[in-house]
């Protein structure tokens, strides 16, 4: 009734180590760590109902994860090593949807970046600054790269670019180094802005009222919020009723949100305040924005905003780490104000990282305690 497996093995040995796919060596240590990192980055939400753990419900609008309206212009793919030209995996690719892309990590003192490399390993992220570099598609159809941070390595095909150097051209399939991570730059489509611009204009043309468009990876994508004439709008993300906080009475949770951003992707919503900002009409025609959150940054054209700020069509509004484009249909051509210079980049290399609270001197014969820095 039973078959002895040994008997079979003798009959016809199958010796190939990995017979179900082309011969691949067993996973090396880095690959195993990447696999682990990938598993950790898979959202918990579809498997588990996080609202049960929370005890209150988040209003996650599924349309906030809708796909891009504009054609992709280029792509950065993480490479296996400094020598290899093999990309690691499709989930470690970042597609570029706009002509002006800040690359790097988010830090509240420097404002949003367009591509923050979620999914990289800790030490790779540690060597990426906020912001790290600027990728730009010029009018003549050439991409260029500019280094923005001191102490953060930027190189094209091994040639280092110093901050302050003029932008360096980057061609299709060239290698870009950011810190200790290597990327391949691929130009997608015809490499020009022609169809991109046409699609952008089409999108904006059909928008009859002033609106905010979510910008991902440099280009506007599906999600938008249409402002209602004469009415202010509060932007933030779901929060519970007051009684769910440990010390009720300290805050006023009576307000509701007009645009709930809870449904953004995991790494995007991280720095969005629960009541982040309010947009209100300043007069019959103009709109202004004001920060509501004390803990999360509001920027306009990547500069911090501390008091009500008049908006112009084309302005880039930054809520924490993500960017929206303000569009006003009666304002004619979009302004080009989104090109102002950035505040000084955060240099992670020399910046002091968060640490334990100061202790009395003499401890452990160590260096003087570092000041606590809250943002990661």
């Amino acid at each position, binding site marked *: *009734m*039973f*078959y*002895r*497996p040994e008997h*079979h093995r003798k*009959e*016809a040995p*199958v010796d*190939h180590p990995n017979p*179900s796919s*082309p011969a691949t060596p067993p996973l090396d240590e880095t690959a*195993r*760590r990447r*696999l*682990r*990192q990938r*598993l*950790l*980055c898979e959202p*918990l*939400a579809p*498997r*588990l*109902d*996080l609202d*049960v*753990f*929370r005890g209150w419900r988040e209003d996650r609008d599924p349309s906030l994860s809708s796909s891009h309206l504009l054609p992709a212009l280029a792509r950065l793919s993480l490479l296996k090593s400094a020598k290899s030209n093999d990309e690691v995996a499709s989930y470690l690719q970042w597609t570029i949807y706009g002509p002006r892309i800040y690359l790097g990590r988010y830090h509240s003192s420097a404002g949003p970046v367009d591509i923050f490399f979620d999914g990289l390993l*800790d*030490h790779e992220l*540690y060597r990426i600054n906020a912001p790290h570099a600027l990728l730009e598609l010029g009018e003549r159809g050439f991409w260029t790269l500019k280094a923005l941070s001191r102490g953060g390595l930027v190189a094209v095909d091994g040639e280092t670019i110093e901050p302050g150097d003029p932008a360096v051209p980057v061609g299709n399939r060239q290698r870009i180094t950011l810190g200790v991570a290597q990327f391949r730059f691929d130009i997608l489509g015809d490499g020009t802005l022609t169809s991109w611009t046409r699609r952008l204009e089409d999108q904006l043309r059909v928008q009859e009222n002033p609106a905010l468009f979510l910008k991902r990876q440099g280009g506007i994508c599906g999600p938008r919020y249409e402002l209602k004439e004469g009415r202010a709008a509060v932007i933030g993300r779901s*929060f*519970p009723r007051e009684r769910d*906080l*440990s*010390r009720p009475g*300290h805050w006023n*949770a009576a307000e509701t949100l007009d645009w709930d951003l809870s449904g953004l992707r995991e*790494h995007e*919503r*991280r720095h969005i305040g*629960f009541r982040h900002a309010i947009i209100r009409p300043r007069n019959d025609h103009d709109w202004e924005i004001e920060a509501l959150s*004390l*803990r*999360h940054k509001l920027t306009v054209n990547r500069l911090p905003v501390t008091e009500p700020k008049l908006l112009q069509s084309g302005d880039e509004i930054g809520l924490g780490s993500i960017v929206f484009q303000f569009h006003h249909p009666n304002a004619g051509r979009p302004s080009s104000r989104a090109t102002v210079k950035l505040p000084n980049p955060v240099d992670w290399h020399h910046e002091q*990282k*968060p*640490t*334990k*609270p100061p202790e*009395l001197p003499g*401890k*452990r*014969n*160590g*260096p003087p305690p570092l000041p606590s820095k*809250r*943002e*990661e």
Partner: protein
Amino acid sequence: MKGFELQPGERVEIGAGTFEVSRPLFPDSRSHAWLARDGEYVRWLWTGPTGGAWTELIERVLDRPRHGLPRLLATKEEGGRAIALLEHHRPDTPVLYDDTWRALPRHEVLDALQRLVLSLGVLHESGVCLGGLSRSHLLWDDASGSFYIGAMPKPRERSDSSEDVWRDIKIVGELLYENFKNRNYPGGHEMASLLQAGELDHGESWQPGLPQVLAGCVTPYGELALKNAHELWVALEHLRVEIEQPLQLRIGSRSTIGSYIFRKNNQDSCGHVKMQTTSGSRQVSLAFCCVADGIGGIKDGERASSLAVASGCAAFSRACHHKHGEMLLDSPTSSARAIARVVSQQLALEGEFDPRGNRGGTTFSGLVLAGSRAGIGHVGDSRIYLFRDGELIQLTRDHTLSTILTELGELDPEDEVQRKAAERTISRFMTSSGELDDGRIDSFTLEAADRLGVDIETLFSEGLVIKSGDLFLLTSDGVHGELAPEELLKQVRAHQEHPDRLCETLVSKVVAQMGHDNVTALAVRVD
């Protein structure tokens, strides 16, 4: 079904390759399954009748990867037979010789059979049945403890008749009987009369739930007949609950300011919740333990860590009440991470709406124990250890600058000052100024997975299987930063059966040697 055989050495062009048949997959050639290779590629070939119906049926169910079933790569018709090319499962061991199967622990038997039943359920739900599943169609993978369906010579459209279900699942009753009773299955008629005579209701290896399951598998008729695969899965689950003794947990903890010269308050917090639920015949113990080490100004750090522990325990309790703790039991690792995730959101909420006194941050290491599995969610430099078989295994990784610099190869082992500073600098923690995304909430390390001999995907999806004698230890850096690893191991060894005494000893050891930090330890002993 004569004429479908392939001959060893025969070459078949299919898919993008030419495959040479090396041997039948099963000794019984009526299984119509062969092993074949094209250079380095090893594949399976199945044969069946022409006319499209056979091909359509297997295409319908094997078009994508499914547990316990091979994936279909290509089909063709040639020489009066249909041929299918399938991915190869390794190891390709035909089912079980008696000693192996009979020696398997009962819970592993139930695991394997439940998984097989799930695969059958998938087939049946797609409207396909196998027209009888036997040992000559089943492969056994010892490493994963799973069956694979290696042949499907007679698939057909499933009718509403319970006979179709029964033909495919009766093998489950046979295999179950052989393991539980440690003897050959006597055959269907004999089994039916044994059951009727109540022969299985007593005896040495008596198991009250066993006759129920066997009766369902022995005949498609009558009240006990099973209507679908899911009913069999449930019956097996009931049997599992019967044989599993719920593990008993004993928890002890201790936290102190430490040396008053260095510290003005205790910024560490720890907490635990234990629950014992009974639903139906199922008794389950659920527990959550966590340690948090506050960061920030004096008051803020203390508040952040106590808030984290309180909201972590609250989140766990909510999950316990929801569907009898189903989420915790199904995925303890994801649950532990979800708790950490929700805690970090709570800190962000308090930080935004109640900023006074809420400007701190905290580390957070939480352990979920659900039924027979454990999961962890971890941020910062507190630690979770498992003491098993005399070894102390660190399950978490410290999120410190030192870990990152080591990775970058920039930490000079000679430079004591740099090393100490890097160790004290935390690279990831929870803060009241923003919430962590899922990807930043850590869990088991690869090193721990290797030492435990479990692969990381299993640890993440199903958690760590705990056993009697395990001891989990959660510590703040006031413990593991002050005590040498050998000292820690020595104390754990000495007090492994007494979690309370262990924590007390660890804390007093640190205080005695004038540790500079708050000291917190929490231990869970599994009995």
